[in-house]
């Protein structure tokens, strides 16, 4: 358990390094939902190759590290309905709010943005409530 905290901190520093590169070199704010969403709804037409390159790194690099671990299990639910409902909520919610854990959370709060703190407060409330309902009341996850 204590090791989890250390690896959490190390992984967090790597996430921060990724955000630092994207800001200082590319001049852009790292937000996973914005980078993907701009590709999907066409609002990111001007920066298409940069978005695809970022997503390429995000998808292709983690599996290179997987062999270092004995097991990497997402422990994701095998209920297709839950995955679809959750995916739709995450997709719509992050685009309506204009950001997710990386954009509002990491990049927003680190520049002391009111919008970043507000978004984070509300997605934590939404997440906490949904775990209470889905786990403790419905027993779904």
């Amino acid at each position, binding site marked *: 358990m204590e090791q989890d905290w250390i690896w959490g901190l*190390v992984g967090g520093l790597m996430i921060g390094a*990724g955000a630092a590169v994207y800001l200082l070199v590319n001049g852009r704010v790292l937000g996973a939902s914005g980078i993907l969403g701009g590709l999907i709804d066409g609002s990111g037409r001007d920066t298409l190759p940069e978005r695809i390159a970022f997503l390429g790194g*995000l998808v292709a*690099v983690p599996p290179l590290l997987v062999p270092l671990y004995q097991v990497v299990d997402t422990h994701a639910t095998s209920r297709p309905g839950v995955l679809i409902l959750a995916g739709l909520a995450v997709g719509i919610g992050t*685009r309506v709010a204009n950001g997710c854990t990386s954009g509002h959370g990491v990049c927003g709060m680190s520049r002391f943005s009111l*919008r970043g703190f507000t978004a984070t407060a509300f997605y934590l*409330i939404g997440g906490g409530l949904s775990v209470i309902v889905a786990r403790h009341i419905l027993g779904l996850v």
Partner: protein
Amino acid sequence: MRNFFAFLSGGLFGAGLLVAGMVDTKKVQGWLDIFGDWDPTLAFVMAGAILPMIVVWRIAARRDRSLIGLPMPGAFPKYVDRNLVFGSLLFGAGWGLAGFCPGPALGALTFGGWQSALFVLAMGAGMAVAPMARQMLDRLDTEAATEDA
């Protein structure tokens, strides 16, 4: 150059998510589950990412151009509105339900089985219809304003 560094940034971000354990949906749900067996790891992940970024924003503020000469981000919106609040609540609800937010869901795509793929597909569909959802919220706003008048 620009695309190489975007790839590098995405790679660092994805590797960090894996190392931090954020691709494990049970761990994420454990963090959100304050009435269960609460898992504080995510606080350390956030701290690890935010602390260096506080310094990086200071450096960024002093620059007109990025290190390879690209424009820096312009002024950010400052308002807190209904879209920010409702959108974040909805995002959080989905995040708690499946334990995936956008970054880790994409990072786990190659090894997360059909579950990751299905979640990412649904998330993509949600992003495709999001502009419509935003228009609906805006219309509600206008109607409320008309009623007030």
